[in-house]
């Protein structure tokens, strides 16, 4: 009931604001839903990955000692893991930029086809 009434109110409001695009229609369109799903498939796993990778460092150094073993000369695994965080960050940011170019194209396509392409 509540949902319905707020929906109705929304429609009236929408009619009053002539010229405002129908965002719900765009949001529910196939191309937009596809873009959202692709974004999600890209962002969620990578975010989980880098957060886990990051927290592994303080968790291992706090609760275990195996990272204190020497890896190369006097450089221990803890240092190598710390350096790996930097490599990981740069690597992921490169991937992000590459992937975003693809999302940009799809977003522009949606603006052109569904929102009149006035956003130039």
């Amino acid at each position, binding site marked *: 009931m509540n949902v319905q009434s707020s929906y109705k109110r929304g429609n009236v409001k929408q009619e009053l604001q002539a010229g405002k695009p129908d965002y*719900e229609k765009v949001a529910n369109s196939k191309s937009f839903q596809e873009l959202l799903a692709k974004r999600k498939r890209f962002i969620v796993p*990578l975010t989980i990955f880098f957060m886990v990778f*990051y*927290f592994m460092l303080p968790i291992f*150094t706090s609760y275990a000692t195996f990272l204190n073993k020497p890896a190369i000369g*006097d450089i*221990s695994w*803890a240092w190598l893991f710390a350096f790996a965080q930097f490599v990981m*960050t740069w690597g992921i940011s490169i991937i992000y930029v590459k992937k975003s170019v693809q999302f940009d194209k799809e977003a522009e396509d949606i603006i052109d086809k569904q929102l009149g392409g006035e956003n130039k």
Partner: protein
Amino acid sequence: MNATVITLFVAIVIATLVITYYAAKRTQTTGDFYTAGGGLTGWQNGLAIAGDYLSAASFLGIAGAIALYGFDGFFYSIGFLIAYLVVMFLVAEPLRNLGKYTLADMISARFDARKVRGMAAISSITIVIFYMIAQLVGAGALIQLLFHIDYWIAVLIVGVMMTIYVLFGGMTATSWVQIIKAVLLMAGTVVIAVMVMAKFNFNMLAMFSEMRTITSHGENYLKPGLQYTVPLDTISLMLALVLGTAGLPHILMRFFTVKNAKTARSSVVTATWIVGIFYILTIFLGFGAAAFVGEETIVASNPAGNMAAPLLAEALGGNFLMSFVSAVAFATILAVVAGLVLSGASAFAHDIYGQIIRKGKATDREQMLAARYASLGVSIFSIILALFAQTMNVAFLVSLAFCVAASANLPVILYTIYWKRFNTTGAVTAMAFGLLSSLILVSISPNVFSPVDGKAIFVGAPIFPLTNPAIISVPLGFLGGYLGTLLSKEKDVRQFAEVQVKANTGYRE
């Protein structure tokens, strides 16, 4: 104080005033004032973001922490760096697409309620004030050490300079001061790092072997656990560092100074590279200071280790390099506090005055005037607080600011962009839970209560055992938003559709 220091110091003051003069001419509208008209390029903004980040706390603090505590000092570098991935992946682009000047603008794109905007403004102002006191007190102490002048004169110099930049030059002046400082700071750091490497014949293995024996900690210097001995505290701190950046008002504000989400993205990427390289180099600064200056000398001039980098510069490059590094440290402080003033002023003048009191009906002239008064107010208020806080141990305020940002701002940002069911009540409770839990937990933590006299503000046993409450307060912020949302029946299907479309496509009406 010697002639070289004075010359470089004056040169920086003059250069920044010239920038402010030209910036003032270009600051005509409110948009110019808050966001430099959105006209910065990705590179410029990336350097400015990196500049905001490479505060005196990073440059002097981390170098000192590594010099004194080895591996544990490096934790900060890692936390600050990974934080950029959180900003890049979850926040930067939607924020640019939805907001105008402030964080509250972005949340209001979905919930146009005064209480939401008011709450967002309050949490931003809280963060800015904490961060600012820490920076100003640190700045005063540092300039006192570097230039041998009284603390109150040092605070006044920094305070007056930051006020001038912001008041006349707005975001344009603040950004350019930040950009120039970032370049100088990187140059200085690279020079010192290369000199340290040269001392070890550019052999990393030799450096680590040497560091294993050279300090009083012996082998333990290179192992984790020298500074952070309570595991949960370490993890809590790391949580605040990695999530806090994405909620810091002066960093978020930087995403409105570019023209679109693409430029916002390229600026985070640029910043990530610069900051990453800088943080790698902090190892050389820290190790170098431990090896060539020595723990005793570092601690003798400042117990927290803040003088490690300037002392190392003196040991390696004599008076000139020391003067250069000191001047850069001075510029660093100026640039960061100016950015803070601006973000505090925007919360007062744009959110509270412009949108809540005047309901968005103030003319551009009135808004501009309000922005300038607010800047002046924030500056004066912080200077007064800093003068009173001289003898207090305020270093924990920086991590408190990160904690509030992570607990009060980040949950509401993420929910607003990504959670369909989220509503006005949830937005208010998320911020209230995050803000209050951080403040309450810190006020009963070992930062405030210590059994040892002089170690904290009050003498007594701390009720809450962790120095950084993020591990409790961040989940509370998320939980607050979740419960508040479910308690209210309100839904905003249509408004969420608009937010989703705008956030994901960058479309603007």
